[in-house]
């Protein structure tokens, strides 16, 4: 693909993105132009000058007149209209100057407007002069003198062009043309004549690859002439051939104006033009793009006067380009060599403006994690303590002088806080900091407080750490150390007098029931009733766990065996423990069926099936590494029982309360004798 970035793929979306309403009214009036002019030729008088055959625009002049391959701008409208098909943005060029010893007032203006239907353009060139004196022969001296009876004669010479250019379906060839209307007049000295005519330029541009452009423009192919009443002047014309080549490789495509140095060569083949002779003419030019705002040019120009070097410079600012050319006309040293032109070449200016929306402290404690449990009293905290700034970034895309659009983004940046304190003690550190702290036993809360100016907005971050003195047989890397530490801290479980926990030891039914009931709010009346009379035959009235067993039975946490016994000393099986804790937790999803792929050793008819399912779905069994084997009849060890209990909703709530407030609401109504 040689030319993917055509006006359809770039300009139109660009226009849409910028909110343009691209419309083309040309289609309405263009056909009408064909009816504006009626031309009839009579006797051929001579060759008339065609102002559009060459232009006095400074970029073209600076490059020695070579422009056929580089005609994507307003100057190109006159030289090779087909190249305008590559124009992405509107193009305009204007020149107003005096040429040829300041005897001709020269005006040139052009505009080309890309649309989704092609590029439409319009151009004008006017070359006017006056001061041609009517003369007489003095009767006495026979010399020529000004005839005072007549005003001096003047000549106007105008051509109006309507341009269209578009690319062919294969994309790498574009075609274009100029429909030209001529109007010339000579007036003064009691004489008046007007000549009018129409002609047509047809051109094509090819992009055989990304570094080479070839172009051809057949000027005045209609061969039509200028009708001055009784006589007709021919206009002649050039066949202009041109090539432009990026000297530094194919990476930078010409039509995107991404070149560094471009060489251009034009060959003009005259057809009966007004000139001293009709020989072939060459134009050679170089353009060096120094940076995005400056171009240097040089050229070798050959015209009817001879050959000469040309120089030029282009200065681009925003979408506008100012061009200067130095061209000394051969054989006429008194002629001014300075030429200027101004062009609108179109370019999207992107303006970015950032304004601070709000600024607030943003303190993130990197380590330790909140609810960290440690056995070490010395703790190092790492925190990012910064001020977070929300910045409104307004991006404006502007096609200068034509349209602009804006979008606003939120952008986040950080800077140091203006004030920072750790546990209310000011500290000088900012950014990512490390702070050492001495922990107190049990729950510690550590707070960073910062302020962001100028609004003095306060920000805080806190981390809660539990300093836990582990049992002698539960090191900090014990798999259930977190449930053990927290359940021990909030008083749900206790160790043995020797500071051991015996995590692998089985848990008796009485111990489990006791553990659960101690977490519950039980009224004194219930306690009173439960302390004396046993509900089970094998639980004596002096059994240490009698009230807990009775209350648990009363609350349907335990049911006992069908023979009326409770078997308090019996080690709880895994199924029993899950069933008891599930009932204790009052889970709502009892009765659901366990998926077949999980716990294959649990039969759906197993009595504890529904409890296991509920516990599984409540996440209480997520410690089982191989979920296919539940092993329901195996004794449950103390650490696993603690884990399952820790994961039960009531205990989870207690743990959260502890982390949040440092206290728990449990056993509030437990009589003193049981505490």
């Amino acid at each position, binding site marked *: 693909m040689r030319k993917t970035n055509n006006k359809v793929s770039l300009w139109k979306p660009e226009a849409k993105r910028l909110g343009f309403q691209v419309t083309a009214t040309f289609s309405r009036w263009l056909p009408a132009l064909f009816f504006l002019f009626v031309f009839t030729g009579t006797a051929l008088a001579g060759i008339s000058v065609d102002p559009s055959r*060459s232009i006095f625009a400074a970029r073209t002049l600076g490059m020695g007149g070579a422009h056929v391959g580089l005609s994507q701008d307003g100057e190109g409208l006159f030289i090779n209209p087909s190249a305008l098909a590559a124009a992405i943005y509107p193009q305009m060029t204007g020149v107003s100057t005096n040429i040829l010893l300041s*005897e001709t007032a020269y005006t040139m203006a052009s505009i080309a407007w890309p649309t989704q239907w092609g590029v439409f353009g319009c151009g004008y060139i006017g070359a006017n002069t006056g001061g041609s004196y009517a003369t007489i022969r003095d009767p006495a001296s026979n010399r020529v003198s000004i005839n005072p009876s007549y005003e001096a004669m003047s000549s106007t010479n105008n051509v109006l062009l309507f341009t269209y250019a578009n690319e062919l379906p294969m994309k790498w060839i574009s075609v274009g043309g100029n429909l030209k209307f001529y109007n010339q007049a000579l007036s003064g000295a009691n004489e008046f004549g007007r000549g009018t005519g129409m002609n047509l330029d047809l051109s094509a541009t090819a992009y055989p690859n990304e570094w080479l452009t070839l172009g051809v423009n057949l000027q005045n192919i209609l061969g039509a002439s200028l009708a001055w009443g009784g006589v007709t002047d021919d206009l002649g014309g050039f066949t202009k051939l041109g090539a432009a080549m990026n000297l530094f490789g194919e990476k930078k495509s010409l039509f995107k104006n991404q070149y560094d140095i471009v060489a251009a060569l034009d060959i003009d083949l005259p057809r009966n*033009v007004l000139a001293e002779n009709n020989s072939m003419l060459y134009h050679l030019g170089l353009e060096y793009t120094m940076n995005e705002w400056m171009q240097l040019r040089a050229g070798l120009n050959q015209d009817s006067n001879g050959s000469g070097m040309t120089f030029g410079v282009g200065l681009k600012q925003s979408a506008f380009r100012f061009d200067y050319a130095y061209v000394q006309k051969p054989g006429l040293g008194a002629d001014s060599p300075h030429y200027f032109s101004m062009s609108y070449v179109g370019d999207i200016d992107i303006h970015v403006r950032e304004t601070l929306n709000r600024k607030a402290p943003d303190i993130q404690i990197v380590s330790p994690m909140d609810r960290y449990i440690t056995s070490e009293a010395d703790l190092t905290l790492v925190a990012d303590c910064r001020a977070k700034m929300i910045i409104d970034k307004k991006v404006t895309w502007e096609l200068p002088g034509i349209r602009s659009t804006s979008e606003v983004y939120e952008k986040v940046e950080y800077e140091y806080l203006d004030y920072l304190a750790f546990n209310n003690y000011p500290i000088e550190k900012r950014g990512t900091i490390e702070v050492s702290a001495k922990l107190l036993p049990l729950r510690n809360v550590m707070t960073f407080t910062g302020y962001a100016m100028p609004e003095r907005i306060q920000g805080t971050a806190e981390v809660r750490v539990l300093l836990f003195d582990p049992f002698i047989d539960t090191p900090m890397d014990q798999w259930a150390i977190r449930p053990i530490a927290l359940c021990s801290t909030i008083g749900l479980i206790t160790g043995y007098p020797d500071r051991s926990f015996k995590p692998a030891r089985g848990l008796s039914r009485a111990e489990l029931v006791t553990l659960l009931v101690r977490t519950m709010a039980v009224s004194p009346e219930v306690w009173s009733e439960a302390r004396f009379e046993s509900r089970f035959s094998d639980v004596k009235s002096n059994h240490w766990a009698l009230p807990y067993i009775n209350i648990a039975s009363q609350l349907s946490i335990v049911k006992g065996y069908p023979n009326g016994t409770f078997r308090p000393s019996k080690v709880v099986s895994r199924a029993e423990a899950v069933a008891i804790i599930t009932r204790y937790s009052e889970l709502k999803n009892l009765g659901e069926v366990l998926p077949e792929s999980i716990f294959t050793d649990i039969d759906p008819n197993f009595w504890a099936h529904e409890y296991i399912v509920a516990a599984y779905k409540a996440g209480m069994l997520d410690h089982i590494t191989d979920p296919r084997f539940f092993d329901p009849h195996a004794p449950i060890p103390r650490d696993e029982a603690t884990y399952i209990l820790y994961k039960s909703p009531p205990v989870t709530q207690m743990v959260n309360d502890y982390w949040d407030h440092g206290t728990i609401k449990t056993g509030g109504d437990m009589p003193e004798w049981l505490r």
Partner: protein
Amino acid sequence: MKKNFLTASVLVILLAGICRADVSIALYNIFTNDVTPEAQPRLTGFASSTTSTISSVEWRVDGGSWQAATGTFGTATVEFSFRPGTGLVRSTTPHVFQARATNAAGETTDPLNKSVYIVDTRPMITFTADNVAVVSGDPIDTTPQFEVKAVTEHPPLTEFKLMINNDSHDLTDTDTTNPAVYVGTYTASLADGSYRIRAIAVDSLGRGATQEATHVLVQSGIAIDIESIPLNYPNPFDPRTQTTSIAYVLSKSANIELRLYDLMGNFLYKANFAADAAGAKAGYNEVTWDGKTGSGTTVGNGIYIYVLLSDGKLLGKGKISVLAK
């Protein structure tokens, strides 16, 4: 001095006759030495046809339009006459009268020419420097060849001389064709400065005349330049039927280059004139342009700009209007 062969005032001399087929025409000069002070001279002649009758005689002067002469036509031999409707310019250059006759068969003679000097009662004098007419203020060369021409109704001249400032130089007549016409030359060697040039002639009746040009400049030491603006005549002109003369006054003799451009600066035509040659002499010069480019193409309607250069220096410029209708 000049020989005097003026004879009878009423002598009729057959000067010339033109015969074509059976039609002939002749003019009879009633002016001695072809010189007359009458600004509207009457000319007479005969036209005859051997096999038919003369139906008309036409005449014109100085290439103007043909007009009908008066006479009684319809016979084999007709005497006719004519005179200009307006007075002709008195000059040392003769006016050329032409006449032609047509018979009833439609046969017309070739034009018969007759030159007539129309002068004052005093001698008429003109002078040139290097073949360029000199008027007051003109530049001239340092070694100009002055040529003085005098025409008198009453020859011979008793005095015929050229004065440069107060220096008098008698002139020798070199014209042998007409006793009333005197031509004398003098080559001067002049230093830079301003001169008063006078040509003086006194006729046989003692009536003198002077032709004078003051402030005639010799300026070899200054750069070549053009006095006033160049002009062309006619302007506008039709290159299909006319040429135009570009006139300019050079401060001194120099190589001159004439270049023509169209309004867009396209170079069309160039002509070079070597110093001292026509078009490059000190003083008044005229060169012609036929409205064609260097390749012979006729230019179209419009205004064209010409420049006069000397060794690359721009001396002057002007604008030629071309209008073919």
